[in-house]
């Protein structure tokens, strides 16, 4: 319904936006994003007819805006302004009635019954009817915003334009306003075009996004597509990471401060490893981003302390957990900074630092294969008692891993583990076949999140290859110890 064709324009001789072409379907909640100076506000003013385009054309329902007079235009498109400083104390009703201007004809026309009905409806829909006879400057910022929204709706437009509607509002008002808009958008098929500064709000409310960069379209499409990290980083020039919103299926983005601790020494060289009688402890000089299947600190997290606790072979899971918490608390460690695993052995262990060019990995493995199973046939056997015989692997990586890289590192390490079992001829007692691992294997990937960047960690990448090699070699060695010990 809205078509923008090769639109260029700006102030004076300088084009701020150039050659924009896009279209918006009826009923779309359309968001325009971009850093300061990308041309968002210029685009808004061009669309609203506040500055004339230098070249190009804007059409609403296939009628060119330049062919419309001011009133025609106002009946098609309403604008919710950014600032509303009224010097005089109009009542809410008077303000909303101004929205009917474009529907009135003649020199001295007054409100018709139709005008009155539309004005009342608009006030009802925005929840300001109760304030109708109050002066607008008595209202709070959020209420005022709703009054101006009612005025825009009283224009009965096909499309509503908003320039950073949430700029001056606190968070609860922002959400309230966007919720109201979304409701109108959905129930009345009102097309909304909003310039939104907040990437997360844009992602949650918009059906489609347009990302502007230096006056040109950098991306357009569904939020998940447009808000790709790489694209945003290139456009915003800042470090933005994408997560997923906990309750809404929308991408969530976080900014991280650009200045981080820098130390020329590799962080991996500064890991400290200590072994007590019942635990192996690794301390890191700074927080590592972790992704693990550990007993404590599983999933994604940040940790600077890594524990491998030795407990009895037969154990109760909750008891073990309690034991670990107590132990770390005694050592003065905050459990939220911790990745903690449990093992039956600390002797059968091996560790390795591998470096190839800019890839730097440190791997530590402890192995007790006494409860080994074959994942492919294990389904046929009864689940045995929980035993602490496990393979625990800690992989420390210098660099920033994408979430994909974390997941691929897990896959790579697991494949290498199975291969080590195969080559070490570890037999699963229950199925009498070559085992693939043990139940409750612990695996932790810890990345320093400093330079360099690792987007992938599959077996075709240098990082993946080092992980595969490191896990295979350390595990093979640890298994060898365990065999020799068992045989002796």
């Amino acid at each position, binding site marked *: 319904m809205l078509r923008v064709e090769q639109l260029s324009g700006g102030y004076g001789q300088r084009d701020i936006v150039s050659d924009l072409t896009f279209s918006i379907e009826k009923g779309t909640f359309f968001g325009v994003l971009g850093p300061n100076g990308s041309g968002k506000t210029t685009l808004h003013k061009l669309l*609203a*007819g*506040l500055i004339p385009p230098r070249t190009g054309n804007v059409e609403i329902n296939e009628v060119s805006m330049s062919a419309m*007079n*001011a*009133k025609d*235009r*106002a*009946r098609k*498109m*309403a*604008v919710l*302004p950014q600032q*509303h*400083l*009224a*010097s*005089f*104390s*109009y*009542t809410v*009703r*008077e*303000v909303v009635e*101004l*929205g009917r*201007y*474009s529907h*009135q004809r003649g*020199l*001295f*026309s*007054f409100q018709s019954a139709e005008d009155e009905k539309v004005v009342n409806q608009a006030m009802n829909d925005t929840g300001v009817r109760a304030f*109708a*006879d109050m*002066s607008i400057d008595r209202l709070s910022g959020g209420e005022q915003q709703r009054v101006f929204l009612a*005025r825009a709706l009283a*224009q009965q437009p096909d499309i509503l*334009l908003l320039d950073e509607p949430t700029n001056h509002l606190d968070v609860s008002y922002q959400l309230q306003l966007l919720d109201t808009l979304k409701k109108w958008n959905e129930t009345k098929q009102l097309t909304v075009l909003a310039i939104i500064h907040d990437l997360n709000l844009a992602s949650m409310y918009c059906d489609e996004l347009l990302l502007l960069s230096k006056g040109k379209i950098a991306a357009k499409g569904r939020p998940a597509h447009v808000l790709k990290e790489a694209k945003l980083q290139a456009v915003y020039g800042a470090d933005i990471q994408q997560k997923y919103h906990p309750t809404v299926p929308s991408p969530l983005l976080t900014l991280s401060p650009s200045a981080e601790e820098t130390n020329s020494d590799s962080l991996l060289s500064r890991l400290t490893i200590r072994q007590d009688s019942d635990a192996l402890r690794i301390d890191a000089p700074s927080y590592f981003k972790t992704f693990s299947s550990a007993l404590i600190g599983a999933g994604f997290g940040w940790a600077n302390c890594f524990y491998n606790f030795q407990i009895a072979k037969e154990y109760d899971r909750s008891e073990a957990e309690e034991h670990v918490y107590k132990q770390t608390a005694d050592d003065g460690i905050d459990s939220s900074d911790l990745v903690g695993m449990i093992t039956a052995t600390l002797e059968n262990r091996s560790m390795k630092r591998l470096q190839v060019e800019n890839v730097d990995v440190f791997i530590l493995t402890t192995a007790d294969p006494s409860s080994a199973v074959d994942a492919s046939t294990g389904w046929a056997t009864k689940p045995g008692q929980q035993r602490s015989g496990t393979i625990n692997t800690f992989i420390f990586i210098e660099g920033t891993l994408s979430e994909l890289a974390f997941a691929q590192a897990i896959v790579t390490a697991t494949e290498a583990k199975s291969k080590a079992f195969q080559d070490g001829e570890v037999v699963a007692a229950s199925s009498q076949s070559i085992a693939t691992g043990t139940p409750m294997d612990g695996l932790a990937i810890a990345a320093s999140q400093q330079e360099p960047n690792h987007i992938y960690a599959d077996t075709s990448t240098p990082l993946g290859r080092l992980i595969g090699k490191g896990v295979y070699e350390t595990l093979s060695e640890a298994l060898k110890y365990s065999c020799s010990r068992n045989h002796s």
Partner: protein
Amino acid sequence: MSTQKFSVLSKHTAWGYPLFVILSLLTVLLTVAVGSVTIPLQDTAAIILNEGFHIQTGVYESMHANIVMEIRLPRTLLAFLVGGALAIAGASFQGFLKNPLADPYTLGVSSGSALGAVTVLYLGLSLPLLGSFTLPVISIIAGFITLLLVLFFARLIQKSLSTQTIILTGIIFSSFLGSLISLLIALTGDELRQIVHWLMGSVAMRGWDHVLLMIPFFIVGSFILFANARELNTFVFGEETARTLGVNTERRKYWILGGASLLTGSAVAVAGTIGFVGLVIPHLVRLLVGPDHRHLLPLSILAGGSFLALTDMVARTIIAPTELPIGVITAMIGAPIFGVLLYKQRRKE
């Protein structure tokens, strides 16, 4: 309960119009009656009805009839027209500029018109076709040009045209134009000394000629502004908002500024520069009936007219037989109110 639920606006305008009309009629009656020779109110009413409308209502002295019809009534009507014109012009400037401190005087429009008028008097100009209308026409044009210059210059200083910037620019222009007027007066010697008195604002020594001179401009100017009352309501929210609401801002802007200049220029041409009427009156009317220009403009005319007629009465009676220039009294009332408004405006910003 629910029947009590009037809107503030309708409640006030409901009594606003009859009240203001009655007040205006009483004011006219009173100001015509009071003077060096005080004429009883009912005689005054009878004279006006009989002589003006040929409605026979009572007996009165013929000398009183002469005083009323030849001296007092034209003077009161002129004061009323001038006051009404300045008030509606002020209300329009304030709405258009979203600026409660704007009025013909503070914007420098009055000074521009005065310079135009003094130039006409100094050169003894009488343009062909215009005749006696030369003075108001030149006055109006000079005022309009001054207004455009003030707005242009203020926009150069600060694009958003804040209250203070506009007023400061107006004061700069007023001072400059005032000095040009003084220069002209100094050059002429004695004959234009009376201009000094006129410059401070006065409706003294005018007659029906001046009333008739003023009326066409008054009607046209008021009509133009009434026809733009709804547009003025949108301009209060900013020119960009006005445009997105469907107002052809480029065209309406010139109608509004032109209409207000027409009223200011014609008022200055007949009565000199009378300050603060256009500032104080719209402010008071707004307090009573709200800021909707559809009501604010007509009621400002009535209130401004009554105010200036009363002020003129005070000016000519308070230290009789000497007459004060009317501008002295409006400034004595207006300047403190200007100060209060400026203070409130600062607090708001």
